[in-house]
């Protein structure tokens, strides 16, 4: 069976987060994934898309950019690729909170890296590639 591939482009603005999650929920549902898998996929993608929009585009003064969302279903795996033309940035190189950090009282906790940590832990695979565009790749298995 061939992979079922779809692509949708979203404006690189914070108000696109909700439509991106809706798009992924619809895809996840159509392939029969359960609510929990779909939620966690949406969460992972939301965290990374937020960083792309806020840090990749907005903070670098790039307006009018796009985040392309490509979904591919093959061999009981749903792969989601976020592609963008913001500055090259590998989220996996971002420092994550340490075990110690996670135990600190809230008011003393460093807040950076929380989103990437959530993203990594919420999907079965999370990868980053650069081919002239940033490609953040998320995989969930049945």
């Amino acid at each position, binding site marked *: 069976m061939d992979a079922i591939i779809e692509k949708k482009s979203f404006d690189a603005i*914070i*108000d696109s*987060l*909700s439509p991106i*999650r809706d798009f992924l929920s619809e895809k996840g549902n159509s392939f029969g994934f359960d*609510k*929990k898998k779909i*939620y*966690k996929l*949406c*969460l992972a993608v*939301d*965290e990374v898309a*937020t960083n792309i*929009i*806020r840090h990749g585009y907005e903070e670098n003064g790039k307006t009018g950019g796009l985040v392309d969302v490509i979904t591919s279903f093959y061999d009981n795996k749903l792969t989601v690729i976020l592609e963008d033309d913001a500055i090259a940035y590998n989220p996996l190189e971002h420092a994550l*909170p340490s075990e110690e950090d*996670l*135990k600190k*009282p*809230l*008011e003393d*906790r460093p*807040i950076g890296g*929380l*989103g990437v*940590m*959530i993203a990594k*832990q*919420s999907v079965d695979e999370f990868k980053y590639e650069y081919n002239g565009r940033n490609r953040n790749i998320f995989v969930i298995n049945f």
Partner: protein
Amino acid sequence: MSFKIKSEVADSVAKITLEGSLDSASAPLFQEEIQKVAGQSPKDMVLFVSELEFMASAGLRMIVFAKQKLGPNVQIFLVKPQDLIIETLQMTGFIHSVHIVDKYPA
């Protein structure tokens, strides 16, 4: 899912009800409500979240903001969070810093 929020302070308890999706787009609205209730120096902050269907790290950041704004002695209660939100609180260790309850007052 759109986001809805309302707040009140009564008897030194800040009560905030959140519905829908709490992401980076809606987090500023939560921040506004926290600032609003902080003006009345509550001793507890209670978040009614049974209808909150999605929460990203932007929501966690607002919980940290609330703790910083209201002071470390203010206790934060989450009333009836959905399972997948509890999972995020566990994954990030936030579960140890808030009280998960079925109703408030107990």
